[in-house]
């Protein structure tokens, strides 16, 4: 069986010869660590991107079957992006930078961390209408139609390949910062936040439609959101449902019309309260199911939503920083989830600095041995 057949069969509750050893990429700092330790060649430690030849070479060295994060993209961001500008250098050496989405971030050299968000541009209706709305319009060049037309012939047939279908709220959060998004939600202009979401979502829908109309076939469709944290969602589930549900439904219905029946969504944090909106509107696969300090969320989701709820992820990647016993314990725990069907284990996010190379090799080998 190919890895594509294995993965798709498992997610459709059909027989497979074994589990595929699936991962979700690396922090670049980890690859540099491994290169310094002589575990991987230096040239594989720089410029990492998911599912490239470099990634596939790492797969071969480590023993992975493939990186789940393998999707084709349309240009569904704001366009043109803002010109990135350095605004000032602070006494502590950090730089205040206006990023290409219009958010002012504070970045410090040598620190591998999400930057702090100092300020943002999208604060009112006037800015939205003049600076953002024109950048949220659909136009044909957003989708490389020639590429998608020949996609079926040139795609990798041995592994699942998805279509990235964007983000209903996560990208808005990226454009406005968490604080800005919160203020916009309660702006005096009560329709403003909904207008932002609606405009952006419609453009993304048109991108998906154009890509699918070329005849390109995908194994799955995939969203990125990241709108939850350790205590739950970044906004009220009711507001989320009211503003976003219709957009998921429209986009997911379109995907199903074109034969895509696996629609996954990447959201870190505790997702429980947003799952009903996602599931009821067509998202059926949780990925990467972050474990964090709260533990597994997949089993509860399966119990609530039934066999229609699928999963890829849920492996506590921090075990790969500890020892063999921790990895063994994690594999034991995962066996239960695998036995439920419709679930493929995968580290619950990118492998981070301090991850032990030999433990990753060991995990990749052992996970293939779990009985289906």
């Amino acid at each position, binding site marked *: 069986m190919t890895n594509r057949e294995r993965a798709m069969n498992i997610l459709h509750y059909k027989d497979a010869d074994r589990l595929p050893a699936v991962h979700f990429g690396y922090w670049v700092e980890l690859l540099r660590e491994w290169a310094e330790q002589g575990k991987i060649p230096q040239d594989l430690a720089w410029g990492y991107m998911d599912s490239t030849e470099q990634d596939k070479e790492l797969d071969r060295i480590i023993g992975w079957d493939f990186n789940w994060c393998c999707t084709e993209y349309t240009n569904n961001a704001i366009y043109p992006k803002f010109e990135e500008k350095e605004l000032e250098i602070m006494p502590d050496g950090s730089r205040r930078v206006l990023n290409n989405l219009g958010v002012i971030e504070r970045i410090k050299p040598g*620190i591998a961390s999400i930057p702090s968000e100092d300020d943002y541009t999208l604060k009112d209706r006037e800015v939205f209408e003049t600076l953002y709305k024109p950048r949220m319009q659909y136009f044909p060049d957003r989708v490389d139609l020639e590429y998608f037309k020949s996609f079926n012939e040139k795609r990798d047939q041995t592994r699942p390949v998805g279509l990235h279908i964007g983000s209903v709220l996560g990208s808005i959060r990226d454009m406005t910062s968490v604080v800005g998004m919160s203020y916009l939600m309660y702006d005096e202009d009560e329709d403003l936040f909904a207008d932002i979401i609606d405009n952006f979502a419609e453009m993304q829908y048109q991108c998906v439609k154009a890509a699918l109309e070329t005849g390109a076939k995908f194994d799955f469709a995939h969203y990125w959101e990241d709108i939850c944290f350790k*205590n739950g969602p970044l906004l*009220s589930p009711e507001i989320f449902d009211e503003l976003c549900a219709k957009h998921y439904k429209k986009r997911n219905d379109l995907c199903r019309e074109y034969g895509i029946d696996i629609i996954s969504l990447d959201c870190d944090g505790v997702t429980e309260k947003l799952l009903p909106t996602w599931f009821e509107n067509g998202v059926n696969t949780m990925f990467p199911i972050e474990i964090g300090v709260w533990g597994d969320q997949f089993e509860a989701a399966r119990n609530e939503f039934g066999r229609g709820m699928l999963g890829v992820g849920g492996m506590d990647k921090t075990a790969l920083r500890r020892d063999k016993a921790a990895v063994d314990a994690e594999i034991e725990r995962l066996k239960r989830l695998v036995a439920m069907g419709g679930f493929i284990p995968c580290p619950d996010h990118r492998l981070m600095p301090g991850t032990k190379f030999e433990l990753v090799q060991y995990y990749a080998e052992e996970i293939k041995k779990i009985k289906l």
Partner: protein
Amino acid sequence: MSIYLEISENVQCGKAKIVKELVQKAIDNGLPAAQILNEGLISGMNVIGEKFKNNEVYVPEVLIAARAMDTGVKILKPLLIEDGVQSTGKVCIGTVQGDMHDIGKNLVKMMMEGKGIEVIDLGTDVSPKTFVDTAIEHNCQVICCSALLTTTMEVMGDVVKEAERAGIRDKVKIMVGGAPVTEEFCKQIGADKYTSDAASAADAAVELCR
């Protein structure tokens, strides 16, 4: 409805402009600044804090309430100083060295201010020495450390060690929190208090400042 209750309710709804007007009206009516603060602004934030703990409101509602409270505090501040009104306690807060993420830290800060605590915000990427030097310089009862990353949370242990080295460990309590932090980790590094959310952190800080 009393003006205090009106202020409290408008803080809860995040109505900054109305809160500003009401606070000014209360001052103009000769009401004591401390009472406007405690029975109006802080009372409103307390309600929001409890609701946040119980998942009845979310981050946006906390942020707009804090913004509304802040508009009122700005007007009251000179009067509070003039009247010699003391804060509930003094805390220095920051995101630990190597970590630039500050959303959680800022939420905790807002919640603590909503309890009447004076908070010295050290920002992000704060070294153990800066935490401890600040606590000494400003007589803080509590050092509050935040981290988003598993790779940076270890620095919290260095803050505890730095406080020991500086000889202030018995005078200052150390609180820890953030996405990867747990009660077990707090005990392991010898910190005093872990809380799982911003509102509980503010409650704990009030207790620790007593």
